[in-house]
């Protein structure tokens, strides 16, 4: 039976403002525009069918992200078998600040890096790192909300974010050196 028009209107009012965010997260998770589109469409339809289970006044964005994430896990991760974590065996990445302390201590070179390069570096991160960065640093979700969404402790979110940001910084630093935005470091940074 079709849902009443009033339900569709309330769904559209609550859910449509999050389409950009859903697509951004979907694209970073899948790294494939066609798959991201399918995932977002599926998420919206699934959310609409479950709309009577949404409590008005609660966090619609978090609810939608949870549906998107479940859809991704069920249909994409299972078949792709990507290595999910590198957390335990990877060396602790150092800060790039020491490498630029003499030449660009405030990181002005970041403003010269083009968006495409940032997104490429983000997409090179392991999936679990990519996910927390896009949720926190692009979408602006608080750590506690991300922890709830992922079903992990806040401490895990923080440590993934810390390592992910350091890896990203290192990639962007290497790019900036390569492009001549930064002086070649003396010795290994």
């Amino acid at each position, binding site marked *: 039976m079709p849902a009443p*028009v009033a339900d*569709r209107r309330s769904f559209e009012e609550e859910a449509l403002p999050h389409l*950009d965010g859903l697509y*951004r997260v979907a694209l*970073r998770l899948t790294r494939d525009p066609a798959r991201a589109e399918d995932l977002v469409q599926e998420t919206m*339809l699934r959310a609409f069918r479950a709309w009577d289970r949404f409590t008005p006044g609660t966090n619609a964005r978090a609810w939608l992200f949870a549906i998107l994430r479940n859809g991704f896990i069920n249909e994409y991760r299972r078949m792709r078998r990507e290595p999910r974590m590198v957390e335990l065996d990877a060396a602790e990445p150092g800060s790039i600040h020491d490498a630029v302390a003499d030449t660009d201590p405030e990181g002005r070179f970041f403003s010269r890096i083009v968006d495409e390069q940032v997104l490429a570096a983000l997409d090179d991160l392991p999936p679990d790192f990519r996910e927390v960065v896009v949720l926190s*640093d692009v979408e602006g979700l608080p750590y506690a909300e991300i922890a709830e969404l992922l079903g992990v402790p806040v401490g895990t979110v923080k440590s993934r974010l810390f390592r992910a940001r350091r890896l990203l910084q290192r990639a962007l630093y290497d790019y900036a050196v390569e492009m001549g935005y930064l002086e070649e470091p003396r010795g290994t940074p």
Partner: protein
Amino acid sequence: MSTEPVNCDETVALLHDFLKRELTPESARAIRRHLDACRHCAQHAELERRFLELLERSGRRTRCPDALRARILDALRELGGAPE
């Protein structure tokens, strides 16, 4: 209210959380105080701020394609019954 002083290592470890406003008011005050007094850490904080700003700016350039938005609206209207 007095706050425990923090050193450079502790400050650097908390810079992202400080910039993302994820610290308790007391911890944030301690970091602020350290940054006011330590030029090295203040510069490091500025680097991290620029980095986080770049991530947000670049990440948010991606938008939901118009065609997808239209497709979703059509599908919702089909599921949702009566037209406007």
